[in-house]
Structure formats: C-alpha cells, structure tokens
C-alpha cells in the first residue's frame, strides 16, 4: 500500500546528548514533519521551542497559536494541505484538544501529538511527573473510536517513536500519540542518530474514494487540498466520498466500524513490546514509560540476588496488547504493574491476564524509584 522510503537523517549521524523533548522534535523533523502548531505548557514547551528553530531551517511552518484548540485544529488543516503535521502539549492542553482529536479520528487525518504527561488532575503539579493521561488518550473524545498511543522510555525512544508515530499515522490515517512522561521529556542522555531514517509517504490515488474501502477494515488513499480533487471533508458522518449522511444508519455503522477495525484488526502489526528475563520468572513486572527504566534496574538487581523476576515493557499502550498479556498470563505467573497513576493500565492487564495481577500505584508527582519496586517484589515473591 503506501510506500516506505529511506531518507537521510536530518542531523549528522552520531551520538548526541539530548533531552527527551529535544529528541521528539528531532524525530519529527527526521520523519518529515513540516508543520507544527502549539501553545506553551510545562513540561512540553521545549519541543515547541526547538520546532520553531528547526522548522525554519528546513523550510517548514511553525505557528504559536492562541490556544491548544487552535493548535490541533490547524494541525488537522495542515495535514489536509499535504503536510506531515504535529503538536505537543501536556495534560490541560490535551484536555482542550479532545474534540478536535475526535475530528482527526473521524476524518482519518494523519497527525502526531506528543503529550508530556505531568502530575494531574487539573493544573496539578505542573513541573512534576505522572502518567495519568493514558485513558484520556484512549477515550478523551466522545464516541467509539481507536487511536494509536506509544510510550517511550528513553531519549533514544523519544526520537525513534516520534518517527514511528508519523509512519503509523500515515499508514493507518489516524492520530498517533506519543504518551511520554515528564521524566522522559526532561531526561537528558545519549542518543544515537543513524544515517538513514525509514519514513512513510501518504498514499494517494487520484479519483479514488478518500473515505471508504471495499474491506471493512481498510485505509483509503488520502488526497490533499489544492490537487484538484474537490475533496469534501466533514466531521459529520459521511459516505466514502465525504458527503454528509446524517440519517442513514448503515453509513454510520460502516464508517464507525471501519475506523475501529482498521486499527483493531491490525493490532498485531502495530503493537510493540520488549521482554527481559521472562523464562523461569515467577514475577513479571509489566511497565511502560519512565517507570520501565526503574523496573529494568530493579529486575536486574533482583536477578543478581537470585530472584526469578522478569520485565515485560509495553512500547505501545493503545491498541492494548491484549493477546500478549493473555499469553504471558497463561504462563501462570504473577504480574506486578507499577504505574504513576491509579492503575490505568493495570485495569487493562487484569482484563486479559487470567492470572494474579498486583498493582502498584504512585500519584505523588515523583518517579517510582527502583528500590520501591524491589521492596514490593521481595514481599510478593
């Protein structure tokens, strides 16, 4: 279908010492992002600042908008004008964007949003860490839909996953969220840039229906404004040519079905994870984001002291790795789920694991320290 393309990386290949936020901006540029719109908010603003500078260098467009609603709406507009486009924000801004994200989903608009999660709810602790926006990423806008949400654990992955987010958004014509947390956004560490970057081009087919496919889980081609295709785009229910159909139950059912199926039926291709020391593990820690770094260290320490512990790291949060969790659960082990929220992913894991799942919640604006994970696992092993 849409073609992948190898391009030269935007920065010279080599090792860099970046923050996660800087790496996200570099990933976007490398992936071909040429439009950014945003509104200042801690702890994500450095992404916007770097994009302001970098987009100038590559002849892209940077807009500081009047608010987050305008930011995300203009990103959708830019995407339909043919640009790879993105925004970045944090909790309060993410909340404001929800209606337009639903628009992006329903009009099948490729776009990338980086959420640097901070300690909510509300204004909460603006400079402190949390990962409480994961359910919002999934269900924040009204109605039934699917999105893709990734969870980076390192500066390197902020770069890699931002590129991946652009590629997935083009492949599936869906908003893709990089659900980072403040600890990764502000972490500074070595990251390596390789000479070539895998990117994905928008799939175009002149005259083809831009909002429907033969299959009930297909991704239609996407024309751009100004190409002479007389596109009509609407957030109301529409037929395969984009014409509003707000009375026909079959049209609604078909469209809602397809935008869900095109993600869910391909989830085995979308979902990524990493496993460490799972064989013979009596307790498997399931973690994501910065917390997976703490868990990684803790598992390593526990292994050194002879404890049979493993780590499953979720790189994709949505669509959820239901099949994988089910397989892991079948091994008959205990799963331990540390999170910087009140159990948003724990609940999903419990749905599919079929074995004992032990949550560990921390909502104090601090990272979960490896020593706390070690102490808890020593109690349950």
């Amino acid at each position, binding site marked *: 279908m849409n073609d992948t393309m190898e391009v030269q990386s935007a920065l010279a290949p080599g090792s860099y010492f970046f923050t996660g936020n800087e790496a996200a901006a570099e990933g976007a540029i490398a992936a071909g992002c040429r439009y950014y*719109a945003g509104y200042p908010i801690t702890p994500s603003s450095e992404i916007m600042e770097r994009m302001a500078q970098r987009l100038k260098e590559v002849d892209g467009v940077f807009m500081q*908008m009047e608010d987050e609603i*305008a930011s995300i709406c203009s990103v959708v*507009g830019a995407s339909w004008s043919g640009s790879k486009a993105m925004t970045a924000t944090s909790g309060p801004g993410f909340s404001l964007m929800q209606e337009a994200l639903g628009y992006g989903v329903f009009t099948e608009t490729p776009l990338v949003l980086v959420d640097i999660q901070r300690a909510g709810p509300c204004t909460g602790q603006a400079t402190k860490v949390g990962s409480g926006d994961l359910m919002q990423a999934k269900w924040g806008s009204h109605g039934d839909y699917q999105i893709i949400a990734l969870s980076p654990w390192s500066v390197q992955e902020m770069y890699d996953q931002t590129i991946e987010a652009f590629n997935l958004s083009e492949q599936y014509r869906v908003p893709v969220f990089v659900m980072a947390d403040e600890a990764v956004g502000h972490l500074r560490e070595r990251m390596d840039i390789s000479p070539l970057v895998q990117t994905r081009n928008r799939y175009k087919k002149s005259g083809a229906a831009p909002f429907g496919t033969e299959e009930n889980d297909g991704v239609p081609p996407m024309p751009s*404004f100004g190409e002479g295709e007389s596109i009509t785009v*609407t957030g109301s229910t529409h037929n395969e040519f984009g014409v509003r159909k707000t009375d026909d139950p079959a049209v609604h059912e078909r469209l809602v079905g397809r935008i869900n199926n095109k993600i869910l039926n391909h989830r085995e291709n979308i979902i990524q994870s990493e496993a460490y020391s799972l064989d013979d593990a009596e307790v498997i820690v399931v973690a994501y984001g910065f917390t997976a770094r703490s868990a990684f260290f803790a598992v390593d320490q526990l292994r050194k002291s002879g404890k049979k512990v493993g780590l499953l790291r979720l790189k994709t949060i949505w669509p959820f790795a239901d099949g994988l969790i089910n397989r892991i659960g079948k091994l008959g082990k205990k799963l331990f789920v540390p999170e910087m929220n009140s159990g948003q992913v724990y609940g999903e894991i419990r749905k599919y694991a079929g074995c004992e799942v032990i949550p560990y919640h921390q909502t104090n604006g601090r990272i979960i320290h490896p020593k706390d994970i070690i102490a808890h696992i020593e109690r349950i092993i």
Partner: protein
Amino acid sequence: MARDLDAYLRQEVKSTPFCPGCGHGILMNIILRAIADMELDMKNILFVSGIGCAAWIPSPHFNGDTLHTLHGRAIAFATGAKMANPKLKVIVISGDGDLTSIGGNHLIHAARRNTNLTVICANNMIYGMTGGQVASTSPLGTITATTGEGNPYRPFDLCRLVLGAGAEYAARFSVTQPLVLMAAIKKALGMEDFTFIEALSPCPTQFGRRNKADSSVQMLKALMQDCITREQAKGMDKDLLKTKIITGEFHHE
C-alpha cells in the same frame, strides 16, 4: 440555484438544506457569483466552515475543496491549511454564533496575524441550527428561545471588532443588497490580507417568527428598511438610528 452556476456546485449534491426564505441560500448564490465574476479557479479554493446552518453554505455544495470542521474552529483549521499550502485561496464561511461566539478568539487572532483568509460571516443574529437561542450578535431586546423577555445584552459590532483586532478590510451588507455585498466579497477576495465580510442573512424560522416577522418576505422587507448606508446615518435622529443597521465598507485606519 441558477443554472449558470452549475459548474460551481458539486454534482452529487443537488438540493440545499435551508428552510424556505433563509438568507443563507441567497448568500450562497452571491458568493459563487463573486467567484465566477472574478474567474477564480474553484480547484484552487478551499472553503472552510464550522458547524451551523451557515456552515452548510459551502459544504458539501461548493465544487472546490471543502472542509466542514467543528463548531467555532473553522478559522483555526483554515489557518493550518493556508500556512501549509500558501497557494490555496482559503475562504471561511460560517455563522455568527460559530465565528464570533465560540470561535471569537480565533477570529481576533487571525485578524491580528493578518492571515491571508477571507472570512464571510453569515449573520442571522441567532443560533439557527440549534433552535433559535440568543447569540452574541442578537440585538438588545430580541426574543429568543433563551431570552423570552428580550435579550438584555448589547450585540457585538463585528466589523469594528475585527478592525480593532487588526483586519485590513471589513464590510457589512445584507443579502437584500446583493450587488454591493458581491462587490465587497470580490474586493476582499482580491486582497492578500485578513478580510472580513459580515453578511446579514435572515433566519425566518428561528428569528423571524419570534420577532414579529412571520413570513420570510416580511423579514426581507424589514431588513431592507433597517439597513442604511453610512451617509444616511449621518444626521439621523439618535433613537431612530438605534433601530437601524449601518452597512458599508470599513477600512483599517
């Protein structure tokens, strides 16, 4: 819609959804005539609208690219589309509630940035689509679904609002003044600036029937009487002037 404008309309959608006597249908005609007169290429025009009856003027009827967005956000979407592809001619067409109430912030900021957009506000002084609730443009005393005793608040003067925010050109005309309205639209479309057209467009269904204009003919007649030029306004009795709508072109000073 007249035959000669067929080429400007999307083939698969023939009828418009407006109530009989709705001003939006007239405005639709006037906008397309302005485009036809200027011989603008529809393939290069993007029409962006929000949500409301007025937002259906271009979408999906106009045979260019149309982007029917969210309530209030048309200008924000249009800004992204225009900035990402500056070659597009981008025209925003939406209602008064949409553009000036929920979307008021985007309106003033686009005017401030002087983003190259022409915004045509179909002002029926009411929320038509949702059943006739009071709008930020409803005159003092208007009876609406949410102001049974009459609107207690003053309306926006939209042209002054956008000029104050930095718009280069603003004009207010009624659909009962088709020739001057069309001329103003053409002027706006010919500029490379943020330009604003306030097109007074009667809503007989939601505004008229509550405010002593039972038929659409009555509404049109009333509009014709109420709209005066700036020249006519000069020296008019103050109380009388309060019942009038001053139409004309307004430039950045």
